[in-house]
């Protein structure tokens, strides 16, 4: 069993509890306007050319975005930091792209981690076929679960897909008693209007007691350069980045609901 990944980030300390290794799987069915990992969208390995300078000379360097790995290879890699996971209560996080775009690989990899006693987190958009979720869910200790917009029409507009499946899957995961952290990217002008925030409040209200953690991710135009590098259209021109401080009032608002809120992932 092999999969295509585009990065393995060690000492990931913001993708779940403790010190973690985050494995980024390639491929995503969504096309969010604000995506800051545009290199993750295509499932296949991509060739790019980068220009680098050394000693005043310029080199064109060919690089591959993504590589194919077997579950065994991946396990060797993630187990290297076992000591750190143990010491910190950390583990492995699967992110993307959308990790469920490679459902069999994700199932095999999460199972392998689970069998080794590692804490497993999956960072997902929730846009996942139910059957795929079923294959994976028992191996997962924590879902980092994106809610991007609660109005379906707007969700389709900004991400290219409906949010129905996202919300259905959320219900299913919570039903199974899994720990879920909602990650809400706050995008100025796109999903920060009062009706949206109200809708988010209502969602948290519905799952009160089972859904207690919310991460507010401030929009950042960090990825602009990457769009140029990958020759993709950048739809966020004119939208300014948010700072942590900008989200403080929002944080206060959700804390009042009895939810644990963090700004940033």
């Amino acid at each position, binding site marked *: 069993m092999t999969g295509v990944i585009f990065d393995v*980030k*060690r*000492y990931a*300390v*913001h993708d779940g509890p*403790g*010190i973690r290794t985050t494995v980024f799987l390639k491929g995503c069915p969504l096309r969010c306007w604000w995506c800051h990992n545009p290199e993750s969208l295509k499932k296949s390995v991509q060739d790019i050319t980068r220009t*680098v*300078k*050394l*000693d005043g*000379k310029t*080199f064109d*360097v060919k690089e591959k975005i993504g590589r194919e790995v077997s579950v065994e290879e991946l396990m060797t890699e993630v187990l*290297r*930091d076992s*000591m*750190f996971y*143990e*010491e*910190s209560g*950390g583990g492995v996080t699967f992110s993307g792209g959308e990790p469920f775009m490679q459902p069999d690989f994700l199932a095999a990899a999460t199972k392998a981690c689970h069998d080794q006693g590692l804490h497993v987190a999956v960072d997902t958009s929730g846009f996942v076929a139910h059957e795929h979720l079923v294959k994976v869910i028992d191996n997962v200790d924590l879902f980092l679960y994106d809610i991007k917009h609660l109005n379906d029409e707007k969700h389709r507009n900004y991400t290219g897909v409906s949010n129905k499946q996202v919300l259905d899957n959320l219900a299913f995961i919570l039903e199974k008693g899994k720990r879920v952290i909602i990650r809400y990217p706050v995008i100025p002008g796109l999903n920060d209007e009062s009706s949206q925030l109200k809708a988010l409040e209502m969602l948290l209200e519905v799952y009160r007691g089972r859904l207690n953690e919310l991460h507010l*991710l*401030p929009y*950042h135009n*960090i990825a*602009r*350069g*990457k769009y140029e590098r990958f020759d993709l259209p950048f739809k966020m021109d004119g939208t300014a*980045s948010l700072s942590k401080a900008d989200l403080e009032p929002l944080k206060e608002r959700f804390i009042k609901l009895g939810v644990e809120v963090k700004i*940033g*992932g």
Partner: protein
Amino acid sequence: MNDRIKKLRQQTLEAVNSLSEERALLLTEFYQSSEAREISAPVRRAMSFKYILSNKYINILDGELIVGERGPSPKATPTYPEVSLHTLEDLEVLDQRPKVSFKVDEKMKKDYEETIIPYWKGKSNRDKIMALMSPEWKNAYEAGVFTEFQEQRAPGHTVADGKLYRKGMLDFKAEIQNGIDAIDFFNDPQAYDKLEELKAMDIAADAIIGFAQRHADKLTQLANDEQDSDRKKELEEMAVVCRNVPANAPKTFHEALQYYWFVHLGVITEVNPWDSFNPGRLDQHLYPFYVRDIKEGRLTKEQAKELLMSFWVKFNNQPAPPKMGVTAKESNTYTDFALINVGGVKTDGSDAVNELSFLILDVIEEMRLLQPSSMAQVSKKNPDRYIHRVLQITKTGFGQPSIFNTDAIVQELLRQGKSLEDSRDGGASGCVETGAFGKEAYWLTGYFNLSKVLEITLHNGTDPRTGKKIGIETGDPASFESLNDLMEAYKKQVNYFIDIKIEGNNKIESIIGRNLPVPFLSIIIDDCIAQGRDYNAGGARYNTSYIQGVGMGTITDSLTAIKYHVYDKNSLTLDAFVKVLDDNFEGHEALRYDLINNTPKYGNDDDYADDQAREVFEIFYNAVNGRPTARGGAFRINLLPTTSHVYFGQVMLASTDGRKAGEALSEGISPVQGADRKGPTAVINTMSKIDHLRTGGTLLNMKFAPQFFEGTEGVNSLTQLIRSYFRMDGHHIQFNVVNADTLRKAQKHPEKYGDLIVRVAGYSDYFNDLTPELQEEIIRRTEYENF
């Protein structure tokens, strides 16, 4: 920080560094006097020590609570012509050099010209050493294969333990007298030497008591003249303190600090020992006084802090005595490496962190002085909240305190044959050196340039910079058929140069043991009194001599590059590779790019590279470890550079890891600057492939952006990172919190900062991978967050 401390702190920060002729003149006066003739070396040293302390100027600064200066005023640094004699030209250089300068006035130059140089020329310890070194030693030394610590400063490299706080000098005098009474002239061939040494110690004890009395007298006089009634009372109390200590054991927190400070001044006035001197486990030694004084209403927490701060200022007033020549380049700083330890374990092995540990950390944070240096011992038994507090200080980017693994230190000491109790009472001093405090003379003898030896091996014994044959012939590199052949040749060269170094060390130790005894220091280090033997002649309970390996990253990457490109990929021959180095990569930029970016590197948890580190470690270790020293101890290794990696890089051509001629080597056991690209856990995994427990200290420096210290989560993660490293027996870790300046450098030279990770927005990324606009933003944010 109250107004008094603010003022004292300002004073020490603003004091201009200068050289003082006072000590050199007094010393010379004594040596020229009739009293100095026809007496034994230890007694001569003790009497000159007493002469200096009896006649030097006593300076009590306005508002200070702890008194005593080594020079006539703060940062007026004495010279030590009996150890190494500055020339007039040296004085000129020190006065004029732009960095780490020392002002030298006309009077001093005149005294040097007319009195000091004429007397000491040819007689200094350095002159004696250099006269005895072999041509092979001089060749290697001049080529930068190794340095020599004792050519300009006396050994010292030791730390005080708790006995100071239990015994006064009068108690030591009684022990000395017992020793004298017990001398057996019937059966002991060493009897006369013992007698002279013990007599010398007795004189030295009187000298320090007299020195304190002079301070007491001056304080009484100042009190009589003082108009301000509060200060008058303070001065009177300080006079009482100086009449009691160090003659007697201290009774209060204040007396304990003042006692140590007199001892400190004694040690650094007697000679110019390396790493000055060091109170060691300060939180442990002072804690009983602190608790008792507070309980009995003599002291408040605030007063304790004020006293500690006044004590801190005294360290900063005593810069490292300046050197010259090669040694000046290898370690050029005002810092004199007094490394105060907090935390760790008690003698019985239990958690030693106490309220005073935290109070001292507060002092370190608020004082933010260059000296003293500070470190936190971290044992598995110490609580996390203690590490969190340490990291809060580290975060401010001032490089202190560094963090050490107590449990590793204890095992290192045990492996060397120390008792469990002595090991637990130990710690680290200087940069990262492990020691049994109060009981061990652990001398550093010189840095060893592991990469230079490879360069010489690749040129069949010749130093390519000079064309001089300084090594042995181990074969033309063209004839090496495998990495193994090269490693065999490298090993022979390492052994050859270590032999030369050790031969030199043994001569030097003998010269120092006979000519430069330190009777004062010998009083306070076990078991010099009991053995009637000087600290410098093997009188300490444990005697160790270190050779410090430098540039683990560079040598590993250099060997790995050869393994990869020459023997595995066959993309060029070793011969051709050597020519590329001789050309400093001129016309081979693409190869250099490949070496930097597409070649396995040390620091990435990749055994392909890390295996070479293991092998180099074994070669170096086997060449040095356990060999006997002239004073009855053993040679050991440690892996630390101070700043010698810069000097060692300057004496080298380009290296096969892509480093250009003259550029610095890697430092300590850290990866080559920018070569670690898999994050901190990978670095730590690589570091733990080295067997720290067989060293006397390793140094790991890691760069972090301040964002990594953000919030409880950031601090928790770093705490866990430290805990993990220490579980793997890592010895030391230091977090270098990068500032905006560093980030600007990274923009200009991305190839040197491939390892630099910054926290961006909800995630982290390599700084090099960010767009220029974003780099700018991170720089702005870092500037903001640092202050």
